[in-house]
């Protein structure tokens, strides 16, 4: 009993002093307090954390945004809008999406903001913009090297054409095409200087059209002569035969080859470079047309001195065939009714200028003229043909 009292001071359950006793009454209070403390602590910690987040919010990735903007600006300056527009626009969209994501997160309560997606988007935008700049650089470099290589080829092509033209009788007829092609090169140079490579290539493409026209014209000029080549061949053959038969001298001028041959007894003994009328692609038709006549002539007067062009051999142009052709052309209206047939066609000196420059004469260097005068005098046959496949 005493023990019970000592060890259990609780209220009797079943009444009476000798009944059963429960745990003392202050113990549950302690537990409740503990629970309350735990709950309060559990509430306070997140509250403190939330307060902390409110006071120290996660900062938006403005640095990443600035980087993306900077990269885009650099790409634009490099010409990405022109040479890598697709990639540039993709970077622009990524940057704007990243910016919008930042704005979206900014609109949320501070504790709930999460800029990781925005950061990632802006990182991608930066990378894409840098790629656009790289692509642009690569494209421009490739375009530049391609354009420069094409220009070098085009220059070579022009130089070749210039050489071809300088040796061609048709120069005056077709030079305008060459000049246009040359002008295209000048425009191309200016565009390359302005770093407008695509346009520079277009300019060269236009120039190549002119060169194509030049080639076509030269071909058609060559074909035009096909009908007359038999005549020229016959003239050459007759001149050689006559020279052989008489054992005398003769002069043959091949206009296409720019050559003058001295023939003796049917054999060429000397040849000289000859310069002709500036418009010698055709037969001479009237005075002042700049063409060297084609036909069989003779030296009518030899002028070893007193010529304006060192020494001269006047030939009997116009011959009967020339006169007949001239009248025929006049009648047909091919040439003006007021035009004249021309005269004073000579083989003379003061040549060696490297171009066809006379009004129809044949010009040799003074040295060659000295040699020619040793063999040729009045009465010597002079045959002038545009071209022939038969030579002494």
């Amino acid at each position: 009993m005493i023990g019970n009292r000592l060890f259990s001071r609780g209220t009797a359950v079943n009444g009476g002093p000798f009944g059963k006793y429960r745990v003392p009454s202050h113990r549950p209070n302690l537990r409740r307090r503990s629970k309350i403390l735990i709950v309060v602590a559990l509430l306070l910690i997140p509250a403190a954390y939330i307060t902390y987040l409110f006071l120290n919010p996660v900062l938006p990735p403005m640095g990443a945004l600035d980087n993306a903007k900077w990269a885009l600006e650099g790409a634009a300056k490099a010409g990405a809008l022109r040479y890598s527009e697709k990639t540039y626009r993709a970077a622009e969209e990524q940057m704007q999406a990243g910016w919008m994501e930042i704005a979206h997160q900014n609109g949320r309560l501070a504790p709930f903001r999460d800029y990781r997606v925005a950061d990632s988007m802006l990182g991608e935008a930066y990378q894409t913009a840098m790629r656009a700049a790289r692509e642009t650089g690569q494209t421009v470099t490739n375009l530049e090297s391609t354009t420069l290589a094409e220009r070098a080829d085009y220059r070579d092509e022009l130089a070749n054409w210039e050489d071809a033209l300088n040796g061609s009788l048709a120069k005056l007829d077709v030079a305008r095409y060459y000049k246009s092609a040359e002008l295209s090169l000048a425009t191309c140079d200016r565009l390359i200087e302005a770093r407008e490579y695509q346009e520079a290539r277009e300019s060269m493409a236009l120039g190549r059209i002119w060169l194509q026209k030049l080639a076509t014209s030269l071909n058609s000029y060559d074909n035009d002569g096909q009908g007359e080549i038999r005549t020229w061949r016959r003239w050459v053959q007759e001149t050689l035969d006559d020279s052989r038969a008489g054992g005398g001298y003769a002069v043959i001028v091949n206009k296409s080859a720019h050559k003058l041959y001295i023939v003796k007894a049917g054999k060429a003994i000397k040849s000289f470079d000859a310069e002709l009328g500036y418009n010698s692609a055709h037969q001479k038709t009237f005075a002042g047309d700049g063409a060297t006549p084609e036909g069989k002539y003779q030296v009518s007067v030899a002028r070893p001195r007193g010529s304006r062009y060192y020494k001269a051999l006047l030939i009997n142009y116009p011959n009967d065939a020339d006169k007949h052709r001239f009248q025929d052309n006049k009648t047909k209206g091919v040439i003006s009714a007021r035009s004249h047939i021309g005269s004073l066609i000579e083989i003379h000196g003061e040549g060696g200028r490297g171009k066809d420059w006379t009004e129809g004469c044949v010009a040799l260097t003074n040295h060659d003229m000295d040699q020619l005068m040793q063999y040729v005098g009045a009465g010597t046959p002079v045959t002038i043909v545009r071209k022939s496949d038969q030579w002494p």
Partner: protein
Amino acid sequence: MMKRVSLAVLALMLLALIGCSKAPEAEMQAAKSAIDAAKAAEAEQYAPASYKVANDTLTAANAAKTEQDSKFALFRSYGKSKDMFVRAQALANKAAAEAEQEKERVKQEVMAMMAQVQAAVDTANAALTKAPKGKDTKAELAMIKNDLDALTPQMAAAKTDFDNGKYLVAKASYESIMAKAKSITDEIAAAAAKKAGAKAAPAPKAAKKGK
């Protein structure tokens, strides 16, 4: 009575709040259209700085709007984004106007050059007509005429580029033609001087050859 007044005031405040929180859709659309118009006017090429400012302002306005969209409805305020959209529209209009002005300036520049080139070609043609012709110069003058004739199709090509709005290409072409026309005029002057020199010191028995 007091209760009713309080409710009315509260309702008015809510209405005001809702009124402020209305998204500036019209302003946003207007700003976007203005930017599209500026782009169509090639402002990116002809007024890049102004276009960039306008575009950035539009993006910033969109960001401001998005920020408000993300907020709880009662806390939304689109006043700032609305102002920015209005400003972006104005800036886009300015960029478009600047682009048009710049294009017009380049166009006028090329047109002025076109007139100068025509004048240079006319001068060269006049000089060629007046150039003294002789055996020493006739061939050169014939080639010079060829050079001059070659300018005509080039001018036509430059005009086509100009009409197609390829002002830079047209300008480069006109510059080339101008340089060529001037060099032709110089060549004619040189040929004339050569002829004059030949006249000043005639060779003995100077007879005109190869007529």
